[in-house]
C-alpha cells in the first residue's frame, strides 16, 4: 500500500502538504539548491531571482482574492504600495521631506502586511454587495484614490517624480546594509536579501497551501464557484470575502515591502493601473487558483526580458536590426502570452507543469 503514491486512505493524508516521501525528498533537494544558488550565481541573477521570489508573495495575494475566492480586483497594486510605504516609514531613514523611524525589519515587515490588510477593510463592505465587473470598477476607483494619495503625500512617499528610499535592512538590531561578516566570510547584502526572500517565500507559500486546504480555503472556493449556493450552505459571505481581501492585502504588503528593499527606492508612479493589471497577468500566466502558479508566473515575468535578450544575443540580432526596441518586444511577448494561455492553457504554466509531471510519472506508458 505504501508504494502506491496516489492511494490515500484518509482525508488528512490526501490534503497533506507533502503527500509522499518523494515530494519531501525533491523539496529538500530544491531547497538546498536554492540556498546554494546565491553563492554561485552572479549579482544579476541573484537580483532577478530575489525579485521573482518577492513578486511571488504578492502574486499569492491576488491568487487568494481572485484565484481562490473569485473576486476581481484591480487594486492589488495599491495594497502593495501601502505595504511598501508602511515599511519605508517604519524602517526607512527620515530626511527633510520624508518620515522614517529606522525600526527593525522584524517590525516593519509584518506591520507592512497588517496595515495593507487593515486598508482592505475599506473595500470589504463593497465587495460583499458587488461582484464581477462592478467590483472591478470599484477597486479601480480605489486604485485611483490611492494613486492620488501616493503622489501627493510627500512625507510618506516622497511625492511623484521623486519617490523615497525604502526601509533599511536591519534585523535583530544588526545592520545588514553592508553585508554580514561570518568569521572570515562576508555574506553580501544581495545574498542576504536573496535568502530572506527565499525564506519568506517558503513561509508564505506554505501559508497559502495551508489556506487552500483549510475551512476558509474551501469557503473561498465555494464563493468563487457560486456565492449564492455557498451562502445557502452556511458560508458567511461578508466574513469570507472580507478575509480574502485582508489576506490578499497582507501578502501584497509583505511582498511589496520585501521587493522594495531590493530596488533601493520607490517612486509612487509605479503603483498605477498597469502594475495592478500586471499582478493579474502573473497569475493568469502562472495558473490562477493553484499554489505553484503565482511562483511560475512571477518567475516568468521577471525572467522573460532576460530570456528575450539572450535569444536576441544567440541569434545575433541587434536592436537596430529590429523594428521594435527591447522594451516593446518584452511587452508584446508578455501580452501575447496572456492571450495564448487564456485560449490554450487556462491553467497557465502550472497546467503545463502538471501535464509534464504526469507524463513522466507514467513514463514510458501514455496513461
Amino acid at each position, binding site marked *: 500500500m505504501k508504494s502506491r503514491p496516489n492511494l490515500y486512505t484518509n482525508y488528512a493524508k490526501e490534503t497533506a502538504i507533502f503527500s509522499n516521501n518523494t515530494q519531501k525528498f525533491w523539496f529538500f533537494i530544491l531547497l538546498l539548491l536554492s540556498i546554494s544558488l546565491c553563492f554561485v550565481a552572479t549579482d544579476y541573477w541573484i537580483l532577478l531571482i530575489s525579485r521573482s521570489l518577492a513578486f511571488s508573495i504578492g502574486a499569492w495575494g491576488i491568487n487568494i482574492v481572485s484565484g481562490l475566492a473569485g473576486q476581481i480586483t484591480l487594486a492589488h497594486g495599491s495594497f502593495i504600495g501601502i505595504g511598501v510605504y508602511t515599511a519605508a516609514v517604519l524602517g526607512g531613514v527620515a530626511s527633510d521631506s520624508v518620515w522614517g523611524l529606522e525600526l527593525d525589519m522584524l517590525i516593519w515587515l509584518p506591520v507592512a502586511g497588517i496595515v495593507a490588510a487593515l486598508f482592505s477593510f475599506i473595500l470589504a463592505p463593497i465587495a460583499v454587495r458587488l461582484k464581477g465587473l462592478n467590483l472591478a470598477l470599484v477597486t479601480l476607483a480605489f486604485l485611483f484614490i490611492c494613486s492620488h494619495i501616493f503622489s501627493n503625500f510627500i512625507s510618506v512617499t516622497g511625492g511623484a517624480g521623486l519617490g523615497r528610499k525604502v526601509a533599511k535592512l536591519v534585523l535583530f538590531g544588526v545592520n545588514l546594509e553592508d553585508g554580514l561578516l561570518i568569521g572570515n566570510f562576508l555574506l553580501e547584502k544581495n545574498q542576504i536579501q536573496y535568502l530572506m526572500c527565499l525564506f519568506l517565500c517558503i513561509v508564505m507559500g506554505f501559508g497559502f497551501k495551508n489556506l487552500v486546504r483549510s475551512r476558509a480555503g474551501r469557503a473561498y472556493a465555494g464563493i468563487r464557484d457560486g456565492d449564492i449556493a455557498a451562502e445557502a450552505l452556511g458560508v458567511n459571505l461578508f466574513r469570507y470575502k472580507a478575509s480574502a481581501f485582508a489576506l490578499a492585502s497582507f501578502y501584497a504588503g509583505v511582498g511589496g515591502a520585501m521587493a522594495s528593499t531590493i530596488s533601493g*527606492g*520607490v517612486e509612487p508612479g509605479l503603483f498605477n493601473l498597469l502594475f495592478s493589471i500586471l499582478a493579474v497577468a502573473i497569475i493568469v500566466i502562472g495558473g490562477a487558483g493553484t499554489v505553484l502558479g503565482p511562483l511560475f508566473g512571477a518567475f516568468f515575468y521577471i525572467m522573460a526580458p532576460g530570456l528575450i535578450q539572450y535569444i536576441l544575443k544567440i541569434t545575433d540580432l541587434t536592436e537596430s536590426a529590429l523594428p521594435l526596441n527591447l522594451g516593446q518586444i518584452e511587452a508584446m511577448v508578455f501580452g501575447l502570452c496572456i492571450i495564448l494561455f487564456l485560449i490554450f492553457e487556462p491553467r497557465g504554466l502550472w497546467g503545463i507543469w502538471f501535464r509534464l509531471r504526469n507524463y513522466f510519472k507514467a513514463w514510458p506508458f501514455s496513461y
Partner: protein
Amino acid sequence: MKSLRKQGIIFFTILALVLVACGGDAAEEVVEEATPEVVETLDSPAVTTAQTVKTGVGVTSDPCPEAVGSFPTGADPSKGCIYLGLINDYTGPYGALGPALELGQRAFWLWANQSGGVGDYSVTIAEGGDAQYNPAKHLEVYNSMRDDVAALAMSLGTPQTLFILDELDKDDMVAAPMSWYSGYGFKEFDKGLVVEFGSSYCAQGMNALDWSLENLPADIKTIGIIGNANDYGYDWAAGVEIAAEANGITVAWSYLPPATEFDVAQAVGLMVTQPVDAYFPALGPTAMAQVAGGAFQQGLTPFALMAAPSFNDSFVREGFALAPLFTSGTMYVTAFTQPYEADTPGHAAMRATFDAVGQATGNLFVTAGWTSQYHLRDVLKAAIKGGDLTRAGIRRAAANVDVSSDQMMPIKNLGRDGGLTETYVGVPTADNLSGINTLAWPYTGPTAADYDWTAAPCS
C-alpha cells in the same frame, strides 16, 4: 492552561518586538569621512604622471569592438579598451529621448577615439540597458553591467540614480547624469560619484528671470511657474522664485503637480484667471505645446521663458500648427550650453562627427548627450595620469580634477561643492537644425552671481 501559554507567547513576542525596536546601535558610531579639500587639476603635481597604469574592471588590453550595434566606435585596434555602461530609457515616459541622448554619447566617443582616445585606451559604451524609468529596472540594468564596465556613461533619471547610489558607492562607480539638478553639485549628496555637467535648473531659472527683466520689451511685474513635482520642476521653480524675491517680482501662481496629475486645462485656467506678464515652464515638449496652444486659443500670449527640456525643434518646423506662436518673439529657451550650430571647437567637432556618420540631427538632446561625456573623458584622463584606472582610481580622479569641454561649457571644478551658473538664452527659429537662435551666452544674472552656491541644493 492553554490560554495561559498563549498569553505567555503573546507577551514575550511583544516584549521581543519592543526590545528590538528600542535597541540602539550605540556601538556603531558613524565616522564621517573627511572630504579632501585640495583640488587638483590634470596638470597639478598631486596628479602624478605614472609610468604604469593599474587597471581594473571594465578595462581590457584587448581593443574595443569596431562597432556597437550599427554605430562605429572609432576605436584604435592597437589600444586597449575602457568599457562604459549605459542605463538608458528606450520605453516609458522618456523613451523618446533616450535614443537621441545615446546617439550624442556614442558620437562623442567616436570622435574622442578618432582623436587619440584616452591615453593608451579607446573608450566605448557597451550595449545600453532599458530601465523604463523604473527604479527596480534601473537596479536590474545596473546589475547586468556592473561587472563589465569601468564607469557609467549615463544613468538616466535623478530618483533612479539616487536609489542606486549605495550600490554605486560600493562599486566606486562614477556616472554621468542626464539631469541638471542642483544637488549633483554637492559631494554630500552624490558621494562624489555623479560627474555633473552644465549649470543647474536652479541657476537657469534664476537667469531666465534676470535676463527677461533686463532684455524683454515689457515691464514684468507678475509671473507664473509651471512644472512637475520632481527634481526638474522643483529646482527650476526654486531658482525662479529666488530671483523673483531678489527683484521684487510677484509670483502670482506656481503650478507644480505630479506628472501623472498634470492638467493642461488647469494650467491654462491659471493663465486666464490670473494673467501674468511672463511664465516660466519646466515641462516636457508635449505638455509645453498643449499649454502654450491652450493659452493662445484664449487669446493669451504672455512671454514664456522655457527650461530646455520643454522645447523641441519640431515646434518651429513647417506644418506644426503652433510654429507661428513659437517664432513670434514671445517664447524663449534657456539651456546649459549653446545649441548645435554654436561656434566653439566642441560644437564644430560634434557637427563634423555627425556629418561623417550621415546623421542629420541637431536637437538639444543630441547636444546634451555629446556634452555629457566631456567631463567623464577628463576624469578618465586624470585617472590614467594618476596611474590608477581602477574604479577607485577613477572615483578619486573625479573628486580632484578640473574638467573642460572645448568651450561648450565653462571649465568646471569637480572637487568643490557648488555649480556652474552660466546659462544660454535663445529664441526659437525655423532657420537652423536646432531650432534656436542665440541671444545670450554665457549669461549669469545678478541673482545667480550673488547666490551662495556652496550652501545647499536649491530644492
